[in-house]
């Protein structure tokens, strides 16, 4: 038996010493050597790593049928059966590159992204709050990017020759109506939402995805944050108000809830800064929001966001048609918005993203003519004076349901499809000086279905092809919108993209009810882009051509209102844009420059012919500079916005020619505005600080440059008055504190 054992042992030893040499070379499909690839005989210690020439060589003591595997990051793993029978093995291995998010071209024509994650992002979320001209307003930071206009007299994004209503804003896929506070004449209002609610923002200045619609020019797509990193509370005090909030993260880090409240009152600002209008109702805003977020088993989220705000303002301006009389305008607004959504992985490559939202808006507007003692006057001769006394009560409710399914295929290829239903009910009551009231209500059921596919042929070449169908009960017609974009990446990481798409939109609420038989207005976009982005420098240029068809023309209805009467309007916009951002050349300095050239004409609403619209400047430029001075714990920010003068017109109905004519026209002076802000962060570097404070000082239009947005004409056209900013400068001073939760209770008690 000893013999048997010796036999067994010697057999084992024999296998340990009988080695086979395995060598070869690993290349990609273009025969370029791949260094650092791992070669192994599965389930054994034997293997090697390729050198800089892609070569490898090792000895194996394994026997018989084995599997040789080659792996390297970014390539599909390679396996081959080999038979180890004493003779040396020579192998040439060719590995196929995987299409991965990190390497693949990004389909980016038309889009600007602000996010931490995406490599194509040109801004990060913090840029939105540290750009001085933006004053922490979500949309205003985008006015320092190419494609947008420096319109100061009304809110919204005016993109590439489009009106503000041609830009729609989406939050987690749901359309946000009344994103801005209700309009006031001549004064742009802010966005309602705090920029810190969002983790990512995509601003598309054209050619956006088939998942969105009803915007002829532009889509701003906001994505809300997931779970907070830890529980925290914050408090803020500023010249315009105070607020506070809390975000609570559950112990198991699977869910969170938060609430916040803000109170804004411009009383103190009015004491310190001279405003042109005489505010008899000091702007006052109450705003509260609440949220919860639950992380699901498969890494998805259920998110709720709810918002309510109540605000009022009222101001007097001199009446343009008389000497000594005043126009007093006031508005109170109540707005609610709620959105609940669920996105998750369903397994097998399927993803779901669904949600519903509900919002209401209530505006009570009043306008009256007053004398020098601020007493209401009803003047019936001339007759038009009497119509300056009116009240307008708007009530609106909106609801939306949306479902998007995505199936991920091999690599990054995917198809996405879904449906969307949007309900709106808008009621307006217009009451004249004599108590005569006109009331009408507009309801719309807007149904849409959409599908798009991402096709990645290689890491270098990709396309997104999609389409969208819509049916609105206002038109009772269908529309079909194709969307295509293609992107190609060069070896130096620069990339070129092209986008084409057709976009449809309903008439604005204020021009409804329209004449029956009216159709959608539409725009066709062609965009060609080149960009080269890395973490320190970004360059982007775009050429675009946009053709408007079936724009709405307006006329006077038999109740005396301006309504959409036909689709005979049209227009075009074309231009070229540049963007350059650099964090590298000057140490500790981050700056960006953008420039847009725009050539546009359109014939719409009551325009008598195709003219350059009053909201479009030919040249627009912005410069933003940020520098953090570490020893001072202070960040200095500067922004300069420039635009050439805009056209203005007096368009009046001529009773002899029975049509609208231009009776006067001109061009405003160039727009220049320089804003600065300083952020001081005293707690940086303190060990276990109780709180983290940010002090902010911001001055808008620091040089006090004269800005004329447009002109208002008197009723008879004999006088015109410039429309300017309500104050020459605006100064903002504030302090924002945030606390980690363990000390929050003390801190709040100490501070309140």
């Amino acid at each position, binding site marked *: 038996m000893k013999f048997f054992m010796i036999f067994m042992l010697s057999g*084992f030893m024999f296998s340990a010493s009988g080695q086979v040499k395995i060598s070869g070379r690993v290349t990609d499909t273009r025969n370029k050597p791949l260094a650092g690839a791992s070669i192994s005989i599965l389930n054994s210690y034997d293997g090697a790593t390729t050198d800089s020439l892609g070569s490898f060589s090792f000895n194996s003591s394994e026997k018989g049928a084995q599997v040789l595997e080659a792996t390297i990051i970014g390539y599909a793993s390679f396996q081959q059966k080999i038979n180890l029978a004493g003779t040396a093995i020579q192998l040439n291995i060719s590995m196929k590159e995987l299409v991965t998010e990190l390497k693949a071209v990004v389909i980016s024509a038309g889009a600007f992204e602000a996010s931490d994650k995406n490599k194509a992002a040109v801004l990060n979320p913090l840029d939105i709050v540290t750009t001085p001209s933006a004053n922490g307003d979500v949309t205003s930071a985008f006015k320092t990017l190419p494609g947008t206009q420096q319109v100061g007299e009304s809110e919204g994004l005016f993109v590439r020759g489009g009106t503000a209503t041609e830009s729609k804003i989406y939050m987690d896929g749901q359309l946000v109506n009344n994103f801005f506070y209700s309009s006031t004449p001549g004064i742009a209002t802010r966005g309602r939402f705090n920029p810190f609610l969002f983790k990512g923002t995509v601003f598309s200045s054209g050619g956006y995805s088939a998942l969105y619609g009803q915007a002829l020019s532009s889509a701003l797509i906001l994505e809300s944050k997931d779970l907070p990193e830890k529980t925290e509370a914050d408090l803020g005090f500023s010249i315009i108000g105070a607020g506070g909030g809390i975000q609570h993260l559950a112990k198991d880090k699977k869910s969170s809830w938060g609430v916040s409240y803000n109170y804004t009152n411009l009383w103190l600002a009015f004491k310190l800064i001279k405003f042109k209008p005489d505010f008899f109702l000091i702007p006052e805003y109450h705003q509260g929001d609440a949220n919860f977020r639950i992380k699901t088993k498969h890494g998805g989220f259920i998110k709720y966001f709810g918002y309510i705000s109540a605000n009022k303002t009222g101001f007097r301006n001199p009446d343009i048609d008389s000497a000594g009389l005043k126009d007093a305008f006031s508005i109170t607004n109540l707005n609610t918005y709620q959105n609940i959504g669920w996105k998750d992985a369903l397994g097998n490559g399927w993803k779901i993203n669904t949600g519903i939202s509900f919002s209401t808006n209530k505006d009570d507007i009043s306008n009256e003519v007053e004398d020098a003692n601020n007493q209401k006057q009803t003047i019936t001769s001339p007759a038009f004076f009497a119509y300056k006394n009116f009240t307008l009560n708007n009530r609106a409710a909106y609801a939306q349901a949306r479902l998007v399914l995505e199936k991920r295929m091999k690599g990054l290829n995917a198809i996405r499809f879904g449906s969307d239903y949007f309900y709106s009910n808008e009621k307006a009551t217009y009451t004249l000086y004599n108590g005569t009231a006109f009331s009408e209500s507009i309801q719309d059921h807007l149904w849409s279905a959409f599908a798009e596919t991402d096709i990645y042929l290689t890491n270098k070449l990709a396309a997104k092809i999609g389409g969208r169908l819509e049916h609105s009960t206002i038109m009772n017609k269908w529309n079909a919108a194709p969307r295509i974009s293609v992107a190609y990446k060069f070896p130096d990481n620069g990339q070129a993209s092209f986008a084409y798409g057709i976009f449809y939109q309903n008439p604005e609420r204020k021009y409804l009810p329209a004449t029956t038989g009216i159709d959608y207005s539409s725009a066709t976009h062609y965009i060609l882009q080149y960009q080269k982005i890395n973490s320190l420098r970004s360059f982007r240029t775009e050429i675009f051509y946009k053709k408007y068809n079936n724009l709405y023309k307006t006329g006077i209805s038999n109740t005396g209102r301006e309504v959409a009467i036909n689709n005979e309007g049209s227009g075009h916009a074309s231009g070229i844009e540049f963007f350059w951002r650099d964090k590298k050349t000057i140490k500790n300095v981050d700056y960006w420059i953008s420039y847009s050239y725009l050539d546009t004409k359109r014939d719409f609403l009551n325009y008598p012919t195709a003219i350059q619209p009053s909201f479009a400047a030919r040249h627009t430029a912005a410069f933003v500079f940020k520098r953090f001075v570490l020893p001072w714990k202070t960040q200095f920010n500067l922004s300069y916005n420039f635009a050439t003068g805009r056209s203005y017109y007096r368009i009046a109905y001529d009773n002899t020619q029975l049509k609208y004519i231009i009776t006067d026209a001109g061009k405003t002076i160039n727009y220049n505005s320089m804003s600065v802000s300083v952020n001081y962060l005293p707690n940086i570097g303190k060990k276990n600080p109780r709180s983290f404070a940010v002090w902010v000082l911001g001055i808008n239009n620091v040089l006090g440059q004269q800005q004329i947005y447009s002109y208002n004409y008197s009723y008879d056209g004999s006088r015109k008055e410039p429309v300017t900013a309500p104050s020459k400068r605006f100064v903002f001073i504030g302090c924002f504190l945030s606390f980690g939760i363990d000390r929050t209770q003390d801190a709040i008690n100490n501070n309140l």
Partner: protein
Amino acid sequence: MKKLILLALMTTLTVAGFSQSDKYLAAMKRNLAAIDSSFSNPPSLLSLANTFERIADAEKNQWLPYYYAALCQVNYGFMVTDKAQTDNIADKATALINKADSLSPKNSEVSCIKSMIASCHMMVNPMQRYMQYGQESNTEMENAMEQDPTNPRPYLLKGQSLKYTPEQFGGGCKTAKIELQTAIDKFLVYKPASELYPAWGLQRVQQLMKECEQ
């Protein structure tokens, strides 16, 4: 006879078993000896990472080879000059350390690697990524300290991270030295649980200390 054959088979199996373990021990020791010299040479660090991964995949139930494979990968991640690669390498290290983690849960050494991986992700763009990865790195560091208070390596990592944090952000040599000294004190009394157990770091602490004293 049957009994004898059975006995013989068992013996051979045991012998084979022993020699397998010897083989593991020998391979691990040989490659552990190569770790120190590879730290200045990224390609050999990657090669070593691959070797540990092969051992780990062949053994399947040993956490140490996965641990060393992850350690080599993450150090390779710190050294690679093409920042576009860093995240991929760190992700690879994460896949390896997760396997070590499932074989040896709540292990202080595993938490150290997780902290290093988070720092590696952060290095790609510290300004933007500090909030996420800086905190993750700190949390894992604290976990490591809690899981084994005698382990000097989390203090080394903490001292190292403080040294490279600007003074205005609470870093700098002054604060770093306190942690580095703690690490040195712990290294002096630290006894690895086995000869394959992690023992690296003393040289690195001493070097950092020297740089701080200059």
